[in-house]
């Protein structure tokens, strides 16, 4: 068990799509190691996705949220929260629902405390006016690693040797409707019942940007790559997350997928039965996560994409969107 101390700043920023358009976002930025007198340099530098919170089962996590304000919307004094989506037996103080506890005004800090006991894939997101703040980009991944990894020195999704893997990839799904982003940037209201996205994203990017490397210079505020690379025969864990407002169906033709966990719970029956199962299509709803393991097949490139094929588009102008690649190399 370790003590993990993190600090996320809530602010705004801009993301770019492959068609060259830029879109205003709200989001978080990791300022854990930034000296106090320099944190304001991170105003306007929110990233999509928000920073990964990557911890071990049993860790004591102190996560401080600092509201840095919106330099692009100085008139807007929205508060923010962090909601660890799916945290078992949470208490309201750290659950981040403004209507049921507290939220963080501009210029203020608040420290959330978590001691996660259940490994798996979770989500964190702001819960202040969630339809707006989630669509605007205040969403990020949370990984809780099992103790078994430390005991055996290998990688596992859960405390079970049947969930061993060699490599992992994040498939974090959201959509982007440019209209509310544009309206919010211009101090106008959006009727959310008219929500109709034009970009579909994996890890905050639209294909072909999804396969660019992590921290690519061309997209400073979209640091997460969705490219998955493995050697033939390796076990690959894909952590599927959907925090958009639609249901999605992902497939990798030619690669059978074993679902070992749902919503950060290993697939085990009441009496410990192994109820993991196989699928060709991962059908995932908003607010769900799924842990999926596959064996890297013969060397080659395997597209991963949405079988709701209308979503594999860049604003209706060309192929792209919710697509990435699994690149398998021959055994070294």
């Amino acid at each position, binding site marked *: 068990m370790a003590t993990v101390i993190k600090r996320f700043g809530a602010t705004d920023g801009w993301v770019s799509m492959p068609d060259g358009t830029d879109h205003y976002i709200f989001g978080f930025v990791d300022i854990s190691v930034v000296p106090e007198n320099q944190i304001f340099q991170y105003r306007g530098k929110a990233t999509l996705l928000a920073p990964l919170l990557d911890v071990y089962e049993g860790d004591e996590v102190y996560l401080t949220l600092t509201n840095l304000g919106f330099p692009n919307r100085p008139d807007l004094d929205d508060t923010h929260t962090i909601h660890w989506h799916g945290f078992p037996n949470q208490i309201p103080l750290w659950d981040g629902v403004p209507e049921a506890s507290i939220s963080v005004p501009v210029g203020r800090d608040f420290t959330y405390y978590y001691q996660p006991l259940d490994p798996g894939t979770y989500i964190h997101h702001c819960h202040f006016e969630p339809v707006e703040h989630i669509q605007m980009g205040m969403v990020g991944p949370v990984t809780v690693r099992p103790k078994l990894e430390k005991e055996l020195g290998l990688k596992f999704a859960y405390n079970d040797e049947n969930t061993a893997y060699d490599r992992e990839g994040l498939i974090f799904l959201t959509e982007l409707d440019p209209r509310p982003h544009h309206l919010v940037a211009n101090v106008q209201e959006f009727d959310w019942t008219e929500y109709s996205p034009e970009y579909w994203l994996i890890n905050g990017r639209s294909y072909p940007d999804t396969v660019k490397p992590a921290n690519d210079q061309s997209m400073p505020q979209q640091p997460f790559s969705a490219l998955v690379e493995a050697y033939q025969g390796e076990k690959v864990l894909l952590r599927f997350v959907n925090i958009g407002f639609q249901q999605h*169906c992902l497939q990798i*033709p030619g*690669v*059978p997928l074993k679902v070992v966990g749902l919503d950060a719970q290993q697939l085990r029956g009441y009496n410990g039965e192994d109820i993991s*199962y196989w*699928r060709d299509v991962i*059908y995932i709803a908003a607010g769900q996560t799924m842990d999926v393991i596959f064996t890297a097949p013969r060397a080659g490139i395997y*597209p991963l994409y949405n079988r709701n*094929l209308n979503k594999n588009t860049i604003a209706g102008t060309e*192929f792209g969107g919710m697509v990435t690649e699994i690149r398998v190399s021959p055994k070294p």
Partner: protein
Amino acid sequence: MATITRVLQVSTGSLSLPGGNIPFWGFADALRVIPQLPGPIIEATAGDRILIFLMRNFFRPIGEPISILFPGQENVLVRKIPGGPFILEPVKPQYSSGKIISFTNFLDELQDLIIEYSFIARKAGIYLYESGTNPEKQIQMGLYGIIIIRPPGYNNPGHPNFKTAYGTDTNSFFDVEKILVLSEIDSVMHNDVLPNVYYDMLKFKPDNWVINGRSFPDTVNEDNNSSQPYGSQINCRVGQRVLLRIVNAGLQNHTLNLGGFVGLVVAEDSFPLKTSTLDATYEKTSLTLGSGQRMDIIITPNASGEYYLFDRGYHHLVNNDHFPGGMMTKINVSS
């Protein structure tokens, strides 16, 4: 183990729907020439090699590159004349300027004559085959079909796998089998699509809801020789085990209500739920299938009568906004 060989073409054709006829693109058996929705059913036995030749269509080509993708099949091989590869090699996505333009090797009808895909039908089940090139457009235009893979011994009375979907001990024995391929059709898109021009899928708004390419009441008509050859009415007797093989070929999710019956889900995505170590079969009255998903269900009617199977998304039970229509069919149970 046998080799199952099919020669297919892709052709433009016409679909008959309640609102009138619309153009579509379909797979056709090369000898039969008429494109159809869904494409011709391909049947094989686990262990067989499936060999599919996709031939250039000189008469009614759709006018853009075409390909076939086989979701659920592993290690698909390809060769092509005259564009190559000439020796079988693994299929791979095709790129232009560093970006995928096709999920698999394609036939360019301006240059190529024939492309050959082959793979070993590794495990029993029901699968889609579908376009891997401009799939958002080509699959909506009609380029999808079904592959059934039988367990060995399926046709052999006395064999433990006889008349099972997944072999003995998978609780998939059946008396009557019906394939139900769900999809939706956007007639505006069908009329507006142009070859080699990107179609703006933000405009996608289906207005027809089909089972096996037909909307109710056409669904209850018998099989025929049209471009929509497969009916979907189910005829059975009390006490029979009826296997419904539900495939969602559409781009959207659909929920099929079993018409008052309770079905036993025996396989999902062609993975049997009952294995040597676990019986994970379960019962449902309605099934939501994501795009590309398949479910095998056994229902056992215990009373004679007429029943309807329908999309529980009730807005899909209409033709031109009028009930009844759309994604619905009938089960006739005789005593």
